[in-house]
């Protein structure tokens, strides 16, 4: 009996699934074009690329969708040119972030007998230099302010921003933290600096942990939305994914 019940339930689920599938309309060129434009505007370059590839496949397999070649000749080329330009700068930013992180070498407190002040100066000057370098890369390839704004929403830009905001500090914290504590410990004149440094380190670690946790939560919500056939559109509105 339980086996029969299970079979019945499985059939019911299968029918419901088929009905749900039948109730969705295949994405057409207009929808894919709109999706690609939106993805591009919100800086999701891989998603924009995927939508454009699908759109090309649709009009290639069924030319009726594009009677006068409006999509192929007029609408897609400017969008693709912009996407390629942004992807190229995003690649440069990725390479920049990787290299910059590899080349970050905080001063050695034991060799240089540095103080917390030296470390702060080091981080400040390094972050300033890296920020200028990154902004130079962007300015060299992107003249249009709108495209710069789009780039600032990409994962590559976010990565470079993390480098400037937390990674440099984290690297300094890892390299110098214990050494500084060891160097300052026992010196009553440096006790207040030592205390502040410990606090800063804790706050920094907490901020990084919070960011990672929030990123994880956002990912889970996005997965749940995608499973329900929804996505988060412009202005935070829920939109249906076809």
């Amino acid at each position, binding site marked *: 009996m339980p086996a029969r019940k299970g079979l019945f339930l499985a059939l019911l689920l299968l029918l419901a699934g088929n009905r749900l599938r039948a109730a*969705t309309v295949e994405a057409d060129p207009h929808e894919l074009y709109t999706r690609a434009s939106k993805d591009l505007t919100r800086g999701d370059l891989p998603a924009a690329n995927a939508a454009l590839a699908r759109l090309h496949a649709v009009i290639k397999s069924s030319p009726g969708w594009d009677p006068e070649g409006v999509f192929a000749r007029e609408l897609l080329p400017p969008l693709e040119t912009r996407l390629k330009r942004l992807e190229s700068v995003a690649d440069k930013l990725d390479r920049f972030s990787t290299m910059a992180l590899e080349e970050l070498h905080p001063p050695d407190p034991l060799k240089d007998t540095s103080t917390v002040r030296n470390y702060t100066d080091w981080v400040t000057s390094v972050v300033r230099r890296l920020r200028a370098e990154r902004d130079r890369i962007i300015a060299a390839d992107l003249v249009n302010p709108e495209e710069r704004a789009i780039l600032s929403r990409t994962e590559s830009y976010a990565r470079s921003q993390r480098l400037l905001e937390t990674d440099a500090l984290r690297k300094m914290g890892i390299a110098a933290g214990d050494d500084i504590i060891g160097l300052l410990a026992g010196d009553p004149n440096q006790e207040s600096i030592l205390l502040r440094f410990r606090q800063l380190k804790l706050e920094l670690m907490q901020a990084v942990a919070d960011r990672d946790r929030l990123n994880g939560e956002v990912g889970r919500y996005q997965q749940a939305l995608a499973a329900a056939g929804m996505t988060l559109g412009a202005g935070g509105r829920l939109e249906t994914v076809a």
Partner: protein
Amino acid sequence: MSYSRRCLLLQGTILAAAIVSGCATAPERQPQPTLTFEEHTLRIPLTVQANGSVSLAESPPLIGRIDLSPILKAEGISAAAKIRPVVQLMVHYGRFYVVADGFRSVWEITPQPGSSAASYRSIPIAADGGARPVKDGRLSRFGSSQSSCLRLDRANGPPIFITPKGEAANACP
């Protein structure tokens, strides 16, 4: 036959000959010249106002207003409902086509140049042999440059094509 009658007959013959020759040499009406013309939009979603009108300025560069009240009334849809209906509009070679969820027809609106009036008509679409209202409808263009149709995809039936003749069909000719 008297002289005067012969004169009249002669004059009549000359007149008739002149008319005939005149007709033969009159310039023939030339067909109007044509040029390449492609005109259409992507589909435009528009929110219906409480008074039943939609503002084209929602989607620039189109501007203006269309009163859809008669169409909504015919479809049995209330514009004053709490959730405002959203219609889909597409301009296709000078004509406007409107559809929305719950419609049983695609509506064709033909502007009357030089006036603020437009004629309209329904193009009934029968889903699955009945008259089920459109669900998740989407207007697109489909066909070739010689025969471009308006295509309506929907969740509750196969695609419908509005042919260049303005008829609903299962395929674009």
